[in-house]
């Protein structure tokens, strides 16, 4: 008799504890997601009390519009720079986990940009990267390297990489800290044993470090992909009304403007769903590739 009463008590307790979190999850995550899917089949303008449903029209419009494809292309620039960001983060993590003087100070300095507000960072970089009188171009010209003084924020071939760099500047420290944590979980005796066997630095890295932090590398690859496809804060702060000719527009910028500037909530919802599907597909692809590479 005791056990059934006990079990009932346990169930009631679990249920009451779960009630509030599940309610919150439902209200703020699942309900909006379902609503988003619903709205993506409509032509709602954000203010009309009645919603007209238009079937797959929104999805057709998305794929017909060339500008959306261009925006996705811009996002890949962030992806490429993101890979560089991962490599740098891993490099600094390895260097700064060894016994170097002042390594705590270096770690703090590299992590500091993550604490800054993205809008403030983009304002700062706008002044630094301005073509005529920005600090970067002026220094390059002063050093006689004027030929390298590019139009960082207005050349269509470079601008997305510039924003990718701003991303790198802010988030590399964060990734480095993640890698540091992972590195510290590898027991030191493996390294010592390898040294005794005559392994050099590269072999130690490839055979010991990488396999042990594989899960973290996968996580960072996923974060990188997600971040690249959702990149928004830097180009939007610099070009809130869209870039001239759309040279630096990203998918999320276009979605936002579609919803709030052009009052096309239905189309914007569809864009959101499409982006989610793209992320899902790409992440699955990435996992297959990574798992195959690591033996």
């Amino acid at each position, binding site marked *: 008799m005791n056990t059934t009463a006990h079990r009932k008590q346990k169930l009631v307790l679990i249920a009451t504890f779960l009630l509030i979190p599940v309610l919150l999850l439902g209200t703020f995550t699942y309900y909006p997601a379902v609503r988003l899917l619903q709205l993506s089949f409509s032509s709602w303008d*954000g*203010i009309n009390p009645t919603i007209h449903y238009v079937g797959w029209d929104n999805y057709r419009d998305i794929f017909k519009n060339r500008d959306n494809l261009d925006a996705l292309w811009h996002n890949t620039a962030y992806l490429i720079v993101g890979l560089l960001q991962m490599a740098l983060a891993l490099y600094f993590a390895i260097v700064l986990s060894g016994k170097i003087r002042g390594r705590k100070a270096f770690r703090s300095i590299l992590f500091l940009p993550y604490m800054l507000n993205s809008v403030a960072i983009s304002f700062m970089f706008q002044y630094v990267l*301005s073509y005529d009188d920005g600090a970067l171009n002026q220094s390059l010209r002063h050093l006689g390297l004027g030929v390298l003084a590019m*139009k960082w924020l207005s050349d269509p071939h470079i601008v997305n990489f510039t924003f990718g760099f701003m991303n790198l500047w802010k988030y590399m420290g964060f990734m480095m800290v993640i890698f540091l944590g992972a590195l510290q979980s590898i027991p030191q005796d493996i390294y010592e044993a390898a040294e005794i066997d005559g392994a050099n630095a590269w072999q130690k890295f490839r055979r010991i470090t990488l396999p042990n932090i594989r899960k973290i590398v996968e996580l960072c690859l996923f974060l990188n992909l997600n971040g690249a496809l959702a990149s928004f804060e830097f180009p939007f702060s610099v070009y809130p009304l*869209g870039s*001239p000719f759309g040279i630096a527009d990203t998918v999320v910028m276009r979605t936002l403007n579609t919803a*709030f500037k*052009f*009052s096309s909530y239905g189309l914007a919802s569809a864009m959101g769903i499409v982006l989610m599907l793209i992320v899902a597909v790409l992440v699955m692809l990435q996992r297959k590739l990574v798992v195959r590479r690591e033996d």
Partner: protein
Amino acid sequence: MQKYLKTGIALTALAAILSACGGNAGNAGNKGASAGTGDASNGKADVKGKIVFVNNRIDLTDKLKEIAAKFHEKYPNASVEIQTMKDLAPLKVRLTSGDAPDVMYNNVTTKDQLPQFFLPLDDLGFNKDNMLFYGTASYDGKVYGIDEGAYLTGVLYNKQVFKDAGIDAVPKTLDELFAALDKLKAKGVLPMGSMVKQIWPLTNWTTVAAAAANDPDFMNKTADSDAPFSLDTPYGKEFAFIKQFIDKGYMEKDMASSDWDVLRKEMGAGKVGMLMLANYGIGAIEGTDPANVGFFPLPIDNSGTPVTMLTNGFDIVVNKKTKYPEAAKAFVKYWLEESNYEDLIGILPSYSGKKSTNPQLAEFLASHPKQYPINPATDALSAVANKSQVQIFNVAAAAMLSSNDMQSVIDKFNKQWADARAAVK
């Protein structure tokens, strides 16, 4: 048993907190209500209640507080709280959720949605003769929104820079304008800032299109055209006009990075000669004495009569769900007739009973420019514009950036517009 007791107490506490939160919403309206013991004169005691007005000038909160105080003096039983928001977009969400302020600016609803959200304002004593743009925010014969003031486009300039470059008089013809720009170029000052980076300042070049069209509805008529940006249309003439400035080298080499926020400081510092903007820019030039900022209408030909485009400012509307409609309407009347807000931000008062006392506007109007008013967008135009996602200033920016090959830009945007027109039908 004890476990049940603790859970029960926790749940009761939670329920109590939640119900208290729900109860607060109703109390907000009663706070400012009649505490006045003053004599009721001219029915002013009927105007009572606390209302909220949302304005977009976050840089003017102190002056707005003064206006609110004066309103309270006039109507002792009523008070207005003027809140400021930099970006008015959240108001749309607040409207749909029923939580919008009593008085606000409206640029979110279409005409047929006006009666659902706002009160008619026909009883305020305004009409077509004493109020600019009266009746443009109306539906079914009732007026729901009243225009706060009109924007005038023109060229901002730094008076000291002009004097130093040897420009004695404000240019009234196109040749004089080019001569002045040449003098500025010779002096090493940027003759004219293009402001392409922000994109929105380029909307002021539509002045040229307005003058070419000579029709207040020319913008609305683009909703009926499949090629509104071609070179023979008013917009096309605007692009050709701007091209002259680019070809003569009066603008920056890298226009895409021409930043209004930087330029307005540089104009104050004397490094930029002219900026094609509107009267709302007069107060935005930083780094120099306000009296040093000048404003003249744009000459587009050699006739000696410069031109300016008149566009409507914000429409003021009263929320249908307001608890104090008399106070809200009294405030709207006060705002338009007595608050002097127009002088504060340098726009032309829309009420004919008010004359602007802004010195730059006076200088501007002394040139007797021909005024081309532009009627606010019709629902048809908004529908096509939203569907095509084409905004005139984006087209102008693209045209300016590829001024050597404007035709391909024009073709691209024409096609987007035509596709949207077909889809919206």
